[in-house]
């Protein structure tokens, strides 16, 4: 949804356009596994309907590049911006609840969401199109070790296809933008996702590791997961339970009204799940009564953690 408005594609931004992006999974061995574009074309070339449609669109024989263009053209039609919140901004003051409005104020203030998820009339997506390490993969990855491996592998082969394979099939994908730039500052950073329709695009984060928006709030509330490359803007937020509910209520007003029913369903499902279990929640960290660095500083083998 709304991918037409992205400036780069894939979580690590390795693809510059939809037309280009569409061709990658077809050749990726763990996705569609076609050896090359020609083989992929063979699979559809005999289809009379395709032949006619391609002829009409591109006035030439079917080819692999046009396949990318066609998929890209389809993706560009999937624009879903008409949310209750947008209607609220356009003057319909009843479009969102008071709770959600309070959540918007937090989004814009104490919860710091707007830092990376700016939303305004000219950029309604809620993404700054940049790459940030918010600590998601730091929970289960040793960045330094991975970075060493990646640098070695990419020194031998840094082709587009190799990158795509590594980014989809291996742990190295957790290095995020680093795989593209090989710059240490990009270790573990991923493109800020758009925030529109967030209510119905679960599970969350680049690896789908969080089930509900309450978990997402818990993650940010505790200041992300400490790691050396953590984005500078990530801080413990000290949000109360009530405030977390308000932000989540606001996030559920960002779904296009065409998905209103699904959105409501998700809200209820996620709320029920969050009532049962909040695996990431850490109030001590959120309130700064424990600081993530303390354990490191006082233990003698800090750099090995």
């Amino acid at each position, binding site marked *: 949804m709304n991918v037409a408005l992205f400036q780069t594609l894939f979580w690590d931004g390795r693809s510059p356009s939809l037309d280009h992006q569409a061709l990658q999974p077809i050749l990726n061995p763990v996705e569609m596994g076609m050896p090359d574009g020609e083989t992929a074309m063979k699979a559809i070339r005999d289809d009379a309907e395709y032949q006619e449609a391609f002829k009409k669109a591109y006035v030439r024989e079917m080819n692999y590049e046009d396949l990318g263009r066609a998929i890209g053209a389809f993706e560009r039609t999937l624009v879903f911006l008409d949310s209750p919140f947008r209607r609220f901004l356009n003057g319909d003051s009843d479009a969102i609840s008071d709770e959600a409005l309070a959540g918007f104020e937090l989004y814009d203030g104490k919860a710091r969401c707007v*830092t*990376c998820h700016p939303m305004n009339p000219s950029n309604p997506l809620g993404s*700054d*199109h*940049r790459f940030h390490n918010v600590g998601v993969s730091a929970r289960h990855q040793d960045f*330094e070790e991975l970075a*060493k491996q990646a*640098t070695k592998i990419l*020194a031998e082969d840094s082709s587009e296809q190799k990158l795509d394979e590594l980014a989809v099939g291996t742990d190295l994908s957790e290095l995020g933008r680093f795989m593209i*730039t*090989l*710059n*240490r*500052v990009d270790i573990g950073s991923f493109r800020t996702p758009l925030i529109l329709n967030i209510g119905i695009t679960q599970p969350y984060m680049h690896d789908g590791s969080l089930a509900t928006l309450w978990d997402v709030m818990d993650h940010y509330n505790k200041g992300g997961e*400490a790691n*050396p*490359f*953590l*984005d*500078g*803007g990530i*801080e413990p937020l000290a949000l109360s339970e009530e405030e977390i509910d308000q932000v989540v209520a606001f996030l559920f007003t960002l779904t296009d009204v065409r998905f209103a029913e699904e959105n409501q369903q998700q809200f209820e499902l996620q709320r029920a799940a969050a009532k049962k279990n909040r695996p990431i929640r850490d109030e001590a960290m959120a309130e*700064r009564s424990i*600081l*993530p*660095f*303390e354990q*490191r*500083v*006082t233990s003698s083998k*800090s*750099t090995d953690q």
Partner: protein
Amino acid sequence: MATHPSVETKYMEERRELFHGIRNLERRSFLKVSAAALGASAGLAYPHSFTPVSVAQGAEDTGSDQAFRFAYVSDSHLYEKDVNDRFVRGLLRAVDDVNNLDPQPDFVFYGGDLAQLGQEKELELGAQILKNLKAPLRIMVGEHDWYLDMGQKWQELFGDPTYSFDHKGVHFVVLNSVVEADFWTERNMTPMERMMTVAGLDNSLQSPFTVGQTQRKWLQDDLEKLSDDARLIILSHSPLYKLYKPWNFWTDDAEEVQAILNRFKNVVVIHGHTHQLLTNRIGNIHFHGVLSTAWPWPYAPEGMPELTIEMSRPDPFNPNDGCGDGEVHVHPDGLVDKIYNLWNRNPVSVTAAYTASGGSDSVPPKPNRPSY
């Protein structure tokens, strides 16, 4: 008396000029400006891409005229944890950066201002973190470390602030360049009032930094045995020249110190305090600033050395932007390549060829956004 426009004033003036310019543009020049604006709005666009630097590893003998490298970390300004832990994380990150250099640097140089207000707990926390460095540490004092107890705690932890050592044929001198004349006794200041005064900018109360007569004499003696073509690197907290007095980007007896260094063929001075990319050359002396792990300073409104390629304004939404650590690659002739490892940008290398050529060769990439 001349008054200097504040940074804000300077910025507003530049803005006014830009917008005035835009109104009077013809179409052709408009395209030029809008292309520049486009570059600016596309976020941090880098003039060249980063390739990992592979460092030639010299043999392990200790003879002279060898190339080698050391790392630097500086200006962490640690507070007690209930006040601020972001700066602590900054220092931890720098320690991680340095520990993950492969191969390891010969040593790590810490450029001063470990603490924010010279308090015991701040300095102890810093010492504790720096213990995690794998490579040996060489440390220097800054004014933020000193003026609460006049260096008592710092010296207890790290020893004498003025010393020299030799490494692979290079003579290193570490100075305490933040010696201030007594302005506090007459005003009856408490130690904390004195510390807060020194920690402040744009106040007329405090005295300018100096190396002072005692250390200048010591320096003269220390260098006496060296021949004029010796490889010599001076480490000081303040720049050993006069840049901008209201911020103490300044050493008041700089000329006297430079005179002592005058007879050498090449001298490199590496200094902390200014928290930014900063390059200067005065005759035979090549000056390099270092980055802070805590915050970047804006550039001084006047007095900027011509060789400095100013970095663009750091992103206010990213407190890491403009901060970092770095490396110094020492050449056989004693000049250095200075690597600024910026945490939110591509690394910048200010090479020996650049300072040696007076700025005509190997020019570091200019950022495509304005300075600040």
